[in-house]
């Protein structure tokens, strides 16, 4: 079921087109990756979703109705440009932010206790924010974002400032939130985490959406007939007929195991490749190379320029 959608959203700042007819649809209980190079318009879209700014045209839908001001309590937003009041105490501040999201002071307190214990930061309650390290502040910030149990969560670069251990902690928490039914829009430049977390992605470049689909499907779509093969036996590849038919991307022969990275031309297929190889060598493994999101990203954005 669709929880959230943007329909043909456009936004222009004085001299700059920030979004052009962008539509996205996010299924309930999934993680949606919103990707794009710097300045593509992601932040503008996210701000529109948070009602920080309004679109010039187009509409935003949440759970079947047009987005309205009271929906703020249904949304949790961790902006890329984030911070806390430096001179305020951690607990007081978390309570304040929770209350601004519509929680009562008592409920906010109850929820905070649970989260502070989970993150093992109860001792920080009466510390001023300026006494905490950047990573500690990010933890507090993360808690403040999810505290009011929003149905839609928006994370913009949630891992920046975290060490690998804490980044993993946050990853696990995000997956847990998803499991509990939250819908998550996730914006990042870290493509490894996109592969790890996102069910669906959309790529925005130069104010337009240029790619949209399930993560696995997109990677499938951008594979380019490349196979990694390891084999036993000698393949004198330079003079071999295979080299004329296929593109050899990498070839290594040594005592431990022979490896070949090979691409078949358009019109051919993997069965034919196997058939051509099987006469000459003993195949140990035969894997299709699925491009990483990183590769897809670079490829698509370069094509678009």
């Amino acid at each position, binding site marked *: 079921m669709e929880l959230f959608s943007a329909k043909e959203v456009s936004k222009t700042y004085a001299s700059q087109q920030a979004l052009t007819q962008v539509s996205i649809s996010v299924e309930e209980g999934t993680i949606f990756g919103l990707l794009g190079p710097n300045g593509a318009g992601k932040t503008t879209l996210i*701000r529109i979703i948070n009602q920080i700014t309004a679109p010039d045209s187009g509409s935003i839908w949440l759970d079947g109705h047009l987005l309205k001001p009271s929906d703020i309590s249904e949304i949790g*937003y*961790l*902006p890329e*440009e984030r911070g806390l*009041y*430096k001179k*305020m105490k951690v607990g007081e501040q978390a309570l304040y932010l929770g209350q601004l999201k519509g929680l009562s002071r008592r409920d906010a307190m109850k929820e905070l206790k649970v989260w502070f214990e989970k993150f093992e930061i109860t001792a920080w309650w009466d510390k001023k924010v300026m006494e905490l390290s950047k990573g500690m502040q990010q933890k507090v910030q993360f808690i403040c974002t999810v505290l009011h149990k929003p149905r839609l969560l928006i994370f913009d670069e949630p891992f920046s400032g975290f060490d690998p251990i804490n980044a993993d902690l946050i990853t696990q928490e995000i997956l847990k939130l998803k499991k509990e039914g939250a819908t998550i829009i996730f914006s990042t430049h870290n493509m490894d985490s996109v592969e790890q977390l996102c069910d669906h992605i959309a790529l925005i470049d130069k104010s337009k959406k240029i790619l949209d689909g399930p993560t696995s499907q997109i990677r499938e779509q951008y594979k380019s007939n490349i196979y990694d093969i390891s084999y036993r036996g000698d393949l004198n590849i330079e003079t071999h007929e295979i080299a004329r038919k296929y593109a050899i991307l990498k070839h290594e022969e040594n005592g431990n195991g022979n490896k070949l990275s090979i691409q078949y031309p358009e019109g051919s297929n993997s069965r034919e490749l196997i058939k051509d190889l099987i006469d000459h060598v003993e195949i140990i493994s035969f894997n299709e190379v699925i491009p990483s999101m990183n590769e897809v990203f670079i490829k698509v954005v370069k094509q678009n320029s």
Partner: protein
Amino acid sequence: MHKILLIIQREYTTRVQKKSFIILTLLMPVLMSALMFLPGYLMTMDDNQTRTIAVYDASAVFLGRLENSEFTKFKFIPKEESQTVKNDLKNSSYYALLMIEPNFLTTKAVQVISERNIPWDVKSQIQDKIQGIIEKDKMAEVVKETNIPDLEKKIAATKTNINVETIKVGAGGEAKKSSTEIGMVLGYIFGFLIYMFIFIYGSMVMQGVMEEKQSRIVEVIISSVRPFQLMMGKIVGIAFVGLTQFALWVILGITILSASKNFYPGASHAQQIQNVMAQSQDATKQAATAQIDKMQEVFTMIDTINFPLLIACFIFFFIGGYLLYSSMFAAVGSAIDAQEDAQQFMFPITLPIILSIIVMMSAIKNPEGPIAFWFSMIPFTSPIVMMARIPFGVPYWQLALSMALLIVTFVGMVWVTGKIYRTGILMYGKKPSWKEIGKWLTYKS
């Protein structure tokens, strides 16, 4: 609405709990009273040093006639001694040497020789004494020449002090004594208070906005509340901080005043006067009655000032002026990244405030003049200038017009600054130009 209350509460409590707020609030009345009382106190303390001044009077006009006062003694010395004193003043027992030349009556000049600059007090004593003696001599001469009996007394009787009573005529034809001086003092105090309030708390608003922008918390908050709510919450919260501070100052001020009264022997004023009455001869009795009359007069004059109106207007212009300017301060805070950039945008804000103070000075002297009138209508200067006029009495239609203009301008200004603010707080990086800020007004929210 609930959220804006939360914001007001946070803005208020975080500031009121600050050490700097508490210290300033407690210290200010102490400093102010020190500033008022210390000079007077010091005056009573100083100058109990006895100075003996050697006098060499070559003209022989003053010999034996310079009377000693409490701390200043005069000793006449012969010519020879004056030479030694002059050459070695340091080792002599004298503080200074007064030299009167033989031809004094024509030059009318004397010399005081001392190691250091003599205090102004001592100098004026010498001057007064010599002048007095000469005048007396001349008077005696005139009396002798003209032979008019009691001339001295007659001349003294020509000295007159004129007291101009100012009387305000009320609507019902009733006449009341009014006081221009009290009006001026009150106008000045109230105008200046508003000026301070706008500046101190206006910049506090700007600092607060900049803090939110610099710490990057602003985007977190405006995903929960509208930027306009955040801005107004801050402005209102800080207004309460200001009002709290003033209320505390008033309370502390009154406490200090009543405490300091108890310091003086004779306790209250009434008692003092009674004592004077009881002990005094006829002449002093008269003086004391005059003093009481004068005080009563001051009180009746203060009575002529419409205090409820004055205070109501003060609160109105106090709040109106603050709201108008603090919204502009908020817009400036939102547009810039760092304090250093504030200068360029602060100028158009500070200019009318400073202008108000300058106009206020002239409005106090001429509260009915065209300058006072027009500047008390213009909303950017009216809070300060109008306040200065009110103790003198302002026609109600002018007051109403001025207030209406202030409200309309305030609403318009908040609308404009709100638009600048909501765009500005999300703009990082380079300092915007005026033109860019103008464009922000057209963005859809």
